[in-house]
C-alpha cells in the first residue's frame, strides 16, 4: 500500500511540473484535473480504517475538484477567451528553472524537519511543499486569470496534502474549512472572471496595470 502512496505523490509532483511547462489553456486544466484525481485517491492509500471522515473528504475532493470546477473552467475558457495561448510572465525556461529550485528547496526544508509521528512516507512532506511552491509559482508566472485560478487550486492541493498528515485527529471543522475555502474562493473568482470578460473583453491581468494613482 505504501508503494502506491509514493507513486501517487511522485505523480502529483511531476504533474505539477508539467503544469509549469504547459502553455495551452485546455492542457493546463486537464493536467490539473488529473492531479486532483490522484490527490483524491491518496486518503484511501493512507491505510487505517475507512471511516466517515475519509469518505467525506474523498468524495468531496472528487466532486469539487475533479468534476465541478473543471467544467466551470472549461465553460469559462469556451465562453471567455478567444486565444487559447497563455504565455507565462517569465517564459517557459525560467519557469522550469525556478520550479526546480523550489522543489530542491522543499526537499532541503523537509530534511530539516524530524517527524516524530509515524510518517506515512518520507516523500509526503517534500511533495506537499513542492506542490505548494509550484502552485505559487504558477500563480505568479501566469497572467491569464484562468491560469491564476488553476495556480491557486494547485496551491490548495499542496495544503490539502499537509492536511492529510493530520487526517485521523483533525476535527471535522478543519476539513470543512478547506472545502469552504476552495469552494467559495473559486466561486468568487469565476464570477470575477466573467466580470473581467464583459468589462475588458480579455482576461490578461498583466494589462490591468497600475491604477492611475501610481503614475502621478
Amino acid at each position: 500500500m505504501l508503494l502506491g502512496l509514493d507513486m501517487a505523490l511522485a505523480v502529483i509532483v511531476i504533474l505539477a511540473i508539467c503544469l509549469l511547462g504547459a502553455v495551452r489553456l485546455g492542457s493546463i486544466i486537464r493536467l490539473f484535473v488529473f492531479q486532483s484525481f490522484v490527490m483524491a485517491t491518496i486518503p484511501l492509500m493512507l491505510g487505517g480504517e475507512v471511516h466517515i471522515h475519509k469518505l467525506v473528504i474523498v468524495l468531496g475532493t472528487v466532486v469539487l475538484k475533479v468534476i465541478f470546477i473543471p467544467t466551470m473552467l472549461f465553460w469559462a475558457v469556451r465562453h471567455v477567451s478567444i486565444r487559447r495561448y497563455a504565455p507565462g510572465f517569465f517564459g517557459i525556461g525560467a519557469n522550469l528553472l525556478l520550479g526546480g529550485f523550489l522543489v530542491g528547496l522543499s526537499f532541503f526544508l523537509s530534511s530539516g524537519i524530524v517527524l516524530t509521528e509515524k510518517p506515512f512516507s518520507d516523500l509526503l512532506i517534500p511533495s506537499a511543499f513542492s506542490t505548494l511552491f509550484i502552485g505559487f509559482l504558477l500563480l505568479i508566472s501566469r497572467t491569464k486569470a484562468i491560469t491564476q485560478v488553476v495556480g491557486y487550486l494547485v496551491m490548495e492541493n499542496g495544503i490539502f496534502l499537509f492536511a492529510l498528515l493530520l487526517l485521523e485527529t483533525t476535527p471535522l471543522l478543519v476539513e470543512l474549512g478547506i472545502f469552504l475555502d476552495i469552494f467559495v474562493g473559486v466561486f468568487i473568482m469565476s464570477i470575477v472572471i466573467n466580470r473581467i470578460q464583459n468589462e475588458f473583453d480579455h482576461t490578461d491581468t498583466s494589462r490591468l496595470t497600475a491604477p492611475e494613482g501610481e503614475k502621478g
Partner: protein
Amino acid sequence: MVLFSLGSAQFLTAAGPEQVQIGTLLKPVLSLSKVFGVFFLVLILLTLARTFLAGRASQRRAETWACGYAPSSPRMQTTASSFAKPVLLFFKSVTSFKIHAVRSGNYFPKNLELSSNVTDASEHFIFRPFYVTLRKFSKGTLKLQSGTIPQSLFYILLATVALLIWRFLW
C-alpha cells in the same frame, strides 16, 4: 500629561549613567514657581514705587533725542538686516553673508544701491539635498509598486522564502 512625559523622559534617559528619580526631576519645576513668585512680587513693588515717583515729577513728550541730526525719517530707521549685521559679520564664514553695493564713481552719486543676503545654511546644505534624493529614490521605487498582481504575489513568495532561509535553515 507632564508627569507622564517626565516619566518617559526619565525612562528614556534611564540608559543614562546616574539614575534620576522622579523627585529630583520635579524639584526644579517646584522651585521655579518659587522664583517666579519672587520675580513678580519684586516687579509689582517696583512698579508701585515707579508710579509713585512719576506722580510727583513732571512728564513731557518730546522728539527722540538724535544728537541734533534731522528728526529720524523712516529711511533712517534701524532695519532688521542692519540690526543683525554685527553678528552676521562675525559668523560670515558659516552663513555666507554677502553685501552687494552699487557705488557710482563721483561724490554725488545718482543712484546708490545696497543689499545683503544670507543663505540659510541648514536648509540649503542639510534638508534640501536629503529630501531631493529621497524624492528621486521614491520616484524610482514607484515602478516597483507597478501594481500587477503577479508582482505582488512574487513579493509574498520572496518574503516566505527569505524568512524560511533566514530563520529556519541557518
